[in-house]
């Protein structure tokens, strides 16, 4: 299943009826995240994302080996890349949302899994896509960690296996951070 509909899922979260109306449910950071992107408030969007948890999931056991400075720099650089490379495309895709239905959230280890069903109207047919959101935190406040389209690997799993792990294997934390700095410089230069 393609991940192209992630933006639709996130955007629909904003306009659908929340499951836990009246209290800050797991859908809230998703809605905020998408709305912030839509209106170009990238910093607000990034505040909805749990960088520490993403770091743990992306680096696995290596996360613990990093210094506090390295971890902070990783999160900063990762979000920079995420913002520069993905947010513009997300903004384009937010225009294609039809409707969304949320299921009841379920605990998933230390996280909460929120499943939704995107309904997308194509010119010739109606399509339903299931999307799973992984959130950290509790009822006091949730933050977005990962997104998975049914039948596909999650966003972070893809990034971990295809990009982070090879770079770590190649030269550990220093290499990973060097590559991320280079990429950020490239993206800054492009923008």
């Amino acid at each position, binding site marked *: 299943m*393609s991940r192209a509909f992630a933006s639709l899922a996130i955007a629909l979260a904003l306009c659908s009826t929340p499951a836990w109306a009246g209290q800050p449910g797991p859908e809230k950071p998703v809605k905020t995240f998408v709305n912030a992107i839509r209106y170009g408030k990238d910093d607000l969007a990034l505040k909805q994302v749990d960088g520490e948890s993403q770091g743990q999931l992306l680096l696995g056991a290596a996360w613990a080996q990093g210094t506090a400075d390295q971890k902070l720099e990783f999160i900063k650089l990762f979000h920079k890349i995420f913002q520069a*490379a993905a947010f513009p495309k*997300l903004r384009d895709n937010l225009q294609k949302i039809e409707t969304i239905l949320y299921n009841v959230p379920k605990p998933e280890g230390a996280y909460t899994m929120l499943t939704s069903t995107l309904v997308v109207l194509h010119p010739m047919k109606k399509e339903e896509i299931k999307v799973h959101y992984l959130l950290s935190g509790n009822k006091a406040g949730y933050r977005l960690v990962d*997104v998975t389209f049914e039948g596909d690997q999650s966003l972070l799993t893809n*990034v971990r296996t295809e*990009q982070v792990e090879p770079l770590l294997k190649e030269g550990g934390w220093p290499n990973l951070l060097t590559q*991320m700095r*280079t990429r950020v410089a490239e993206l800054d230069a492009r923008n």
Partner: protein
Amino acid sequence: MKTLILKLWIRLLLERPGTVLLLMVALAGASILAASRLTLDTNQLNLLDQDLRQVTDVQRVTDMSGGAGYLILALRGQDPVKLKAVADEVVKELSVDPEIREANAKIDTSFFRKNAAMFMATADLEEVRRRVMTKLRDVAKRASPFFFEIKKSEPVKLDLDDILAKYQKVGKKDLNDDYYLSQDHQMVLVMIKPRWDSNQLQKTADLVKRLRAQLTQQQTGGLSLVEDYNEAPASDPQVIEFGFTGTYQTNYDDSNDISRSLPPVSGIAFLGVLITLLAFFRRQFMMILLMVLGMLFGMAFTFGFAWAAIGQLNIITGILGGILMGFGIDFGIHFAYRLRIELTRGLSLPAAVEQTVSNSGPAAFASAAGTGAAFFSLVFSEFRGFSEFGLLAGVGTFVVGASLYLFVPAVLLFLEKLMPGLPRRLLGTTGVEEHAAPRPHREMKRPGLILGVASAVTLAIAAFAPTVTFEYNTRALMIEGQASVRLQDEIRDRFAISSDPVAIYSKDLAQAEEVYRLFEPKDPKRFSTVDQVLSIHSFLPPTEQQARNAAVLTAWKEELATVDTSKIPDDFRDRWQQLQTFLEGSPFGMSDLPPHLTAMVTHLPSAKPENHGYLTYVYAGVDLWDGLMMLKFADQVENLSAPSGQEYHAAGLPILMAKLARIVLHDGRTTVAMTAVMLILIMMLDLRSARDAAIALLPLGLGMAVMLGLVALAGFRLNFMNIIVFPIILGYGVSHGVYLLHRFREGVGPMEALRSVGTAVACSTLTSLAGWGALFFAAHKGLQSMGIVACFGMAATLVVSFTVMLPVLELLHQRRRAKTLVEADASGLGETRA
């Protein structure tokens, strides 16, 4: 026997010169009439023994496929759409022409495109699937709004060229377009198969003329058509250039060009002979006229004989006129010089003629026998081009010699009878000249030194003989710049095709499969010269492979069903559609093959019942103009043994050319050996002395070595045509020594012999050089090379005769004189000798 013939000959001349002349004129008239019916066949392949298996195999393929080769109309321009439109128009017109068996500008290849997956090796299909899916995943991944990279990477490239290259052609037809469209899209071909054989040249000429007129008058869509053989397309997009080539056109052009170049060669030879005679005989116009007339009589007889014995000339015998002029006039020259000597000695004309025929006749006969032996050695060649040349040139040598030894004295004696004294006045020998008086003995000074220097120079040049190389490229022998051949080259380059294939006959499908399996899968070592094979089984992949591939396609389709097609970027849509068509392929059998495909590899309905069956076409992957490569290709594909024990044979032009090349190389060696043996025997019979025979043959061996050394030094190469000049040079070269030696054996010293026959030898060599040298002006480069090698050879044997043989004779003569003086002293006559 020799004496009896000489006596009869002399008696006939002395007693009945008028009768001799009358008979000669009558015979010449009949001969000219016969010779006028001679035709010229320039197709070398027609000169192979028609019973050869290689020839009958080709005849069978011709019967099965309706004639070998095509007339190809090539259309060149910038816009392929316009090219196709013109091609369609031409095909439409030709398809209703009763003279045309078929005309096509395209072939329907949709069957292959539809079933492409079935034709692929399963491993290749799996690899295609892997690469396509990798690309699709990458495309989908990059289409995701969440896609980003920490380390930038390039999108996956979908490159299937290495695999598709294996399957994009069937035979030599590209499957990407039904039209015969070149890879650069600048040329479209119309393949025309007339209802006649490519050797019926006039019919081809008429058709081409008609097509040319139609095309130049055609103004379809504002286009103008222009015949042009320059490779670059016209800059004006409204101009379409066209040209004709293919077997039909190149056969016609070959024949036409050769036919046009031969008469000038004979004319130049005649002019050269005439100039040489004028240079040597100065104002003796009467003698020159008699010699030329005698030679022409002899040539008329020879060509009359050619009509009676063979009926036509070929590319080799076509040059006979010039060669015979150069050779034949020699007999007249020697006769004339000797007659002059006898007349200046004060003899009457009849007595001088008798002396001339008696003395120079045997030498002339020995010389003719040597030259004739060389020519006759070619009679045993399997290649009729050589055997017919050997027969005609051998007979011609004797006939022209006899003609001159009859005609010239007969005219002189006849005139003498009518007007006594007139011939002498006309010949410019009216009285006793200084020759009549005894002359002091002339001897060569320091013959040992001369022999040493001459031998050193000879050996120095001969030392280069081993470095001479052989030109295996038959293209180097053709007429240069022929338009249809240049167009053929252009087609080869534009379409990336090698050449016409060879065809292997099999009587049924099982045999056809057996042949196909010999080549597929290809053994790169055994068939290193083979590019591609086309068989009925090329259209029919193995059942097991089709089943395996169908399973791969099924699994692939299931995998693709999970792909959201809405994520495919627009620039990938076309390829997605191609993929969908590709996945539609399904297993098929023989009965599913379209008829137009099976017709390509089976017999025509009109084929003889014994020729019904299947053809497997094998395309060479090497340049077949390169003789070595051609021989290697023929070695690999001509004779094939299947595991069942069945023997199969390839047929086609490369096989015939390879056979021809082998015959020529074989004959080149055997005829030289045969000629050498015959010359030794002739010299032994003529001179009856091993020592004298060795001396007579001396200029030959050394002359041949010098010739090869000169060929190497001048940067020329031996080839399939000039190799046949070798025995001729052997045969001719011996004449130098023979005339000198005969004179020497009459008791005169070598310098005296040189004085009396040396000029004649030099003159006759120059006339022969004029005959062969005329070939320099032949358009055919093979004929040119024959002239070059022959001239080198004759000049070398002449120079060796004068510089090496003479000192040897001088040394012998000095010994002979010393011995005579000693004997004279012993008998008390010493004081009376000079």
